[in-house]
């Protein structure tokens, strides 16, 4: 490769107050190459990408695009130079059509009048380039699936003649077949000579789609290599800076009595007629596609959604359908939606951990805040939550640490039955391993854990049994070692062909 690389970042440094977010990061990206950028949360990936996209200025260091110096003053300028970002959260106007969204801010027009005849071919060409000319430009975006919405976002970048697209955790909210579709699109982008930076926590995905990877740790680029030259444990070791003995630590645990019995449980739409039982000391995984009703099942068990028929029995008692009753019978729920539901973001860690169990610190309704903070601190130490103090607002923590706060709440509550909905989504490998360990410890203490995840590998490695759900129904439960990823997927989509 003798031509100048498409992107060259050299010795990029950025400080925020006393913390060094980036400390001399350098890498190169060639045209038609897909490069993975990986690292733990807080390693500096998002800061680096903010600099690349013009949202932040570097303190020192230089960037070049196709050999020419590049120093965007703002995201708009970056876009005009041909750098586009596709974020985890999509930035679309849900009520506008596919075409209007794609052309938003760059409409073809004259005297303020829109010229659809001029726009339409450009939109079609972009969709065709993505291999999805079946998407109708007139469809309102809110009618599309999340995966299709993402395509719209990518098409928006394409009509601007980009040369470089950054995907930031693009698959975390996608179902498996949407992921496949996205990968097809990325391959097409690669063929047409566009450089792609792919940020992800999923090493399997990285292996599937990327040519090369660059690992960031503590604001430095610690290594860059072709994917076929490294194995999984090398990558993880590079990311965490130590040898992770295993990605999926297990704690030996033994099965006890039956704790939870579901009998023909149905919610308003989902789930439908679910019957199962969970024992103390068991980790039950629930696999399925997005929309299979896994979240709804947990919400019904916990009383957040109403149960239409069937019943939930915990330790022999039939539970009344409300979160407070669920907590009283010993259940704890960790929501998949950390921001919207899981945590009160502006409140302190101590508040968030203790909301579901303030009684031990109160006398006639009056709280002993010091005692509460002390015991919250114990949990923070146990879960290694990195923060200044228990009084720090939850929103200032990184995603992984926020997830630990949510977990600390159900552990602090001393729940017997832990309902965990995607507890490892969007967090780094090291923290994931810690969460698996905590789940194993809980099982070893005779608690029962129900673990919902879209990441089949972790279910297979961590759970005792795995149940597969599709269209609200429980399809099958088997011990984890009798499943593999293909059989789970097969079961999960077996009756799901109807969906595009």
């Amino acid at each position, binding site marked *: 490769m003798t031509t100048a690389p498409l992107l060259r970042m050299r010795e990029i440094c950025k400080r925020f107050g006393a913390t060094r977010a980036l400390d001399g990061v350098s890498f190169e990206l060639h045209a038609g190459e897909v490069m993975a950028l990986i690292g733990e949360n807080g390693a500096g990936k998002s800061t680096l990408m903010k600099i690349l996209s013009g949202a932040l200025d570097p303190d020192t260091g230089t960037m070049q695009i196709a050999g020419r110096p590049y120093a965007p003053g703002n995201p708009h300028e970056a876009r005009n130079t041909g750098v586009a970002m596709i974020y985890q959260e999509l930035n679309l106007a849900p009520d506008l059509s596919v075409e209007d969204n794609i052309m938003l801010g760059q409409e073809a027009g004259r005297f303020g009048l829109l010229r659809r005849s001029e726009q339409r071919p450009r939109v079609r060409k972009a969709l065709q380039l993505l291999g999805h000319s079946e998407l109708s430009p007139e469809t309102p975006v809110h009618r599309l699936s999340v995966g299709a919405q993402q395509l719209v976002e990518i098409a928006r970048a394409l009509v601007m003649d980009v040369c470089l697209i950054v995907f930031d955790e693009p698959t975390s909210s996608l179902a498996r077949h949407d992921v496949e579709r996205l990968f097809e699109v990325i391959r097409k982008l690669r063929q047409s000579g566009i450089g792609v930076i792919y940020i992800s926590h999923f090493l399997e995905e990285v292996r599937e789609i990327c040519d090369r990877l660059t690992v960031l740790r503590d604001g430095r680029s610690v290594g860059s290599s072709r994917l076929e030259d490294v194995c999984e444990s090398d990558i993880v070791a590079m990311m965490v800076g130590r040898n992770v003995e295993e990605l999926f630590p297990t704690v030996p645990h033994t099965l006890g009595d039956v704790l939870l019995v579901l009998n023909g449980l149905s919610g308003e739409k989902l789930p439908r007629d679910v019957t199962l039982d969970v024992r103390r000391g068991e980790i039950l995984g629930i696999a399925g596609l997005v929309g299979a009703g896994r979240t709804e099942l947990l919400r019904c068990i*916990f009383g*957040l959604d109403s149960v239409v028929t069937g019943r939930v029995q915990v330790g022999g008692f039939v539970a009344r359908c*409300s*979160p*407070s009753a*669920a*907590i*009283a019978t010993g259940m704890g*729920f960790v*929501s998949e*939606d950390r921001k*919207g*539901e*899981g*945590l*009160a*973001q*502006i*409140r*302190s860690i*101590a*508040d*968030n951990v*203790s*909301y*579901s169990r*303030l*009684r031990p610190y*109160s006398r006639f*309704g*009056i*709280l002993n*805040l*010091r005692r509460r*903070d002390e015991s919250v601190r114990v949990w923070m130490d146990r879960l290694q939550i990195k923060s*200044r*103090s*228990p*009084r*720090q*607002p939850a*929103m200032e923590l990184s995603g992984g640490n926020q997830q630990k706060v949510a977990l600390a*709440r159900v552990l602090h509550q001393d729940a017997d039955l832990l309902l965990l909905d995607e507890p490892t989504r969007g967090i780094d490998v090291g923290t994931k391993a810690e969460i698996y360990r905590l789940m194993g410890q809980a099982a070893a203490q005779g608690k029962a854990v129900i673990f919902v995840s879209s990441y089949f590998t972790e279910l297979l490695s961590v759970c005792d049994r795995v149940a597969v759900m599709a269209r609200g129904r429980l399809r099958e439960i088997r011990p984890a070692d009798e499943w593999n990823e293909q059989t789970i997927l097969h079961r999960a989509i077996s009756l799901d062909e109807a969906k595009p």
Partner: protein
Amino acid sequence: MNETTEFSQTMPAHGGRGAASVLRSALGPSLGLLLVLALFSIADAVRARIKHKEATFASVATGQKILRDASQVGVAALGMTMIIIAGGIDLSAGAAMALAATVTAWFFRDDYSTATAVIAGLLTGCATGFVNGSLISLLRVVPFIITLGTMTIFLGLGMILSGDTPIRAFGKPPDWLLNLQTPYPVPEWLAVSSGVWLVAVLALLVAGLLKYTVFGRHVFALGSNESTARLCGINVPLLRIAVYTVAGLFVGVAGLFQFAILSGEGDPKAGLGKELEIIAAVVIGGGSLNGGRGSVLGTISGACIMATILHGCVTLDIRTSYQKVIVGIIIVVAVTIDQIRQRRLSR
């Protein structure tokens, strides 16, 4: 661990670097109050020099009057602080306050005992809050709409009760009740009128309630994220009814003040527009209409800022119309400053 003051509830207190920002957020409105006081004192002094008169603003009497004026809005705003922290709003507070005053006047006019009349007024306040809370919880309609409706309902009820003219009960209420809102303290050794002391005590109670009780924690939880509150087993509908009912009690107290200001008259229309002053006090004091933020110290400062502007304008012979403009500007400025601060915090 820092425990700035019992009042500081604007942000969760945290150690280290956070201490400064906590102090700033809790003291911001108080500093604003000092600033406004200083501005008017200077303006008054300058004017006195030019016109060869005596400066009258910077005096004990002004302080007494400002605090007296602030106490009526302030006490109702204590309840509103809780409502706003819990993510709600109460547009009916002004009408409810006047209704409470009218009920009190009705009982006095018909020669019931003082205790009956006072308790009836307070219970009326609680009842209005209970109605608001219950409707919001049961009908699942946003508080803004519900209280917009009950505002008119409470006004109408007051007019039905009074037969469209204010109820006069002159000479019947005891002196201690009417003295709650005298501009000058009676007896004099109180330094400020007894109503102000009452509000001070209630403010301490509310601050303690918000910070040191399970109820208070739950109120903040509800306001910062209702879903989380539900998830943590908090009975959201019940909590909301409780918040509105407790806030109603404070509206009842404000009603008694209203009754005292009119020296024993209950006018159902006297509360028109008061709800906006009450909400403004909370908002100037750093309360967020998105819920989850607000402080007692801030609210009290907010009420005092508005009373100060009112008095300052009177002293400086500024017309009422200009006062309104000034208060409006202060509200916008206060909220803007608060938002800038929060944006910086969340970055």
